[in-house]
């Protein structure tokens, strides 16, 4: 087990370097110059521009810039923003907890409601409630999050007056309730469908018949035998979904004015602050990679036939 984890962590390093380099290259290969933007509309001396660029190391070749950036990153230095001079670690420290909270909130909602609905539908395949749930999830999947976000905002804030249209305090759980539901709804639909298919399939399995024949109580048959065998594909999906949830927060945070990483990344993109974008994106990639490792380890817990030497 320990050796497996160590091997997986080692395999993660090239993927992490590759993904961050790709984002870095996209960011720097693109037109738009933050140094030029510093000058505003004023007339400027090209020599000043050149000097500033040299000072920031922007005149070096791309790979060298990346090496410099990555060495800094390894030492915990995310760099500073060119425009504001603010250390990027400060921006991240401010925005990351908010998004983590929002993501965890959405994730919990997805897991509880999604798996719950999936079980309810999967236990009675082809019944009315099964078909109703399939229809509902199809509608949820076909609604991009901005559509659902504005519908919810219109309904709950403007029509019913239950909440404020945008989030006033990004730190409060009550305020994050609506954004979290909007953020989690797409994953919720997928989780419900996966759970439903998996449960409906396993209902016919031999071990289920055996469990019934042994006279076990229904609660135990469904809760232990069926669930444990049915959750493997769901857990796989959930693991890969955490990264997507954090990226999806760009839209949700924009609609509800939550001051999280999505908001920070969106703003940095338009100010061409490459280091901020790459820094936050690297963290999201890291979360994604760690989550997929966690999923692989969870397999062994759910299915003892899977063993990691």
């Amino acid at each position, binding site marked *: 087990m320990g050796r497996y984890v160590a091997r997986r962590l080692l395999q993660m390093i*090239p*993927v*992490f370097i*590759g*993904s961050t380099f*790709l*984002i870095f290259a*996209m*960011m720097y*290969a*693109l*037109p*738009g110059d933050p140094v030029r933007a510093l000058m505003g509309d004023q007339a400027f001396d090209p020599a000043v521009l050149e000097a500033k660029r040299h000072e920031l190391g922007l005149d070096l070749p791309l790979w060298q810039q990346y090496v410099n950036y990555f060495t800094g990153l390894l030492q915990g230095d995310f760099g500073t923003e060119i425009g504001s001079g603010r250390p990027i670690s400060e921006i991240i420290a401010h925005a990351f907890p908010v998004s983590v909270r929002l993501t965890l909130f959405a994730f919990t909602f997805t897991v509880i409601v999604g798996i719950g609905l999936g079980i309810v539908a999967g236990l009675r395949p082809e019944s009315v409630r099964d078909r109703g749930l399939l229809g509902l999830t*199809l*509608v949820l*999947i*076909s*609604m*991009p*999050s*901005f*559509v659902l976000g*504005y*519908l919810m*905002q*219109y309904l709950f804030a*403007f029509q019913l007056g239950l909440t404020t249209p945008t989030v006033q305090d990004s730190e409060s759980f009550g305020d994050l309730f609506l954004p979290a539901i909007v953020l989690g709804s797409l994953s919720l639909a997928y989780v419900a469908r996966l759970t439903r298919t998996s449960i409906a399939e396993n209902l016919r399995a031999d071990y289920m018949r055996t469990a019934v024949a042994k006279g076990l109580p229904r609660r135990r048959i469904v809760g232990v035998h069926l669930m444990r065998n049915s959750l493997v594909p769901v857990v796989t999906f959930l693991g890969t979904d955490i*990264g*997507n949830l*954090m*990226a*999806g927060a*760009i*839209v949700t945070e*924009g609609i509800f004015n939550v001051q999280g990483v999505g908001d920070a*990344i*969106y703003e940095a*993109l*338009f100010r061409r602050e490459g280091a901020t*974008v790459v820094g936050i*994106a690297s963290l*999201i*990639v890291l979360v*994604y*990679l760690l989550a997929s490792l966690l999923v692989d380890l969870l397999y062994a817990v759910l299915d003892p036939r899977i063993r990691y030497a």
Partner: protein
Amino acid sequence: MPEKTAATAVSAETEAGATAPDDAPAAVTAKPEKARSLWSDAWGDLRRNPLFLISAGLILVLLAISAFPGLFTSASPRDADLANHYLQHPNWGHFFAPDWFGYDGQGRSIYARVIYGARASIMVGVGVTALVTIIGTIIGMAAGYFGGLTDSLLSRVTDIFMGIPFLLGALVVLTGFENRSIWVVILALVFLGWTVIARVARGAVINIKQADYVVAAKALGASTSRILLRHVLPNALAPIIVVATIALGGYIAAEATLSFLGVGLAEPTVSWGVDVSSGREQLRNAPHVLIIPSVMVSITVLAFLMFGDAVRNALDPKLR
């Protein structure tokens, strides 16, 4: 002459199907399943599936709208008349008239904009899916069939692209372009989206590689390109098509989301995402300006999702 009668008898048999097995010659009834390939079997299934019929009908209408928008509305999507303010509410009874869905903030007919906006969504959805399928299949087939170093390299590259969340990557790529035409958006989505198909294709090819017919073809001295094109590809196609059709709806949603965020398509291109984005200023007073294009996005995505679902159910024998 006798050959011809035999041929007509066979074709008559395949047309009549299983309805008249007694009259058919013995040689034909001996192997009636021969005419039912995976594809004809799936087609027989699909024809009877109401979900498939509804979604296919919707998709045909959407294709017609995006090909000939002029047939569906007399108004122009870019004619702005400030006398038709957004506060003038929709006339739900005026079917297909310019004021059916009311007017947006600049006095443009929302109905006309919704009709003309279909083209962008459909082009992005179909274009991205087609390119992603071609590129992903080639990469996945190369990785799966050749194995070894090729596989390790291509799989690591796939992992790297997969590590970047789709929406985030698309945002980064697209902010760099000043003039974002439909093709720029399509290429950006293809750049990030080919990995899913590549993985599916690789998995399918690895399974097929060990099949007896591939080994037999190799033993008979067939060239690599012949094995790949005539034996491996046709058999790997079903899972690829399933994933591609389901992804199509997702690409349409992605285009709308990116246009909504201001990094996808932009004015003067007519696109549902752009219209949703401009409609949010008046959400409180004139929600229809935002909701109508949003509903169009959802209906389109829904149609392609249902279509993909139906195709998957028909092609995947495990689900039957």
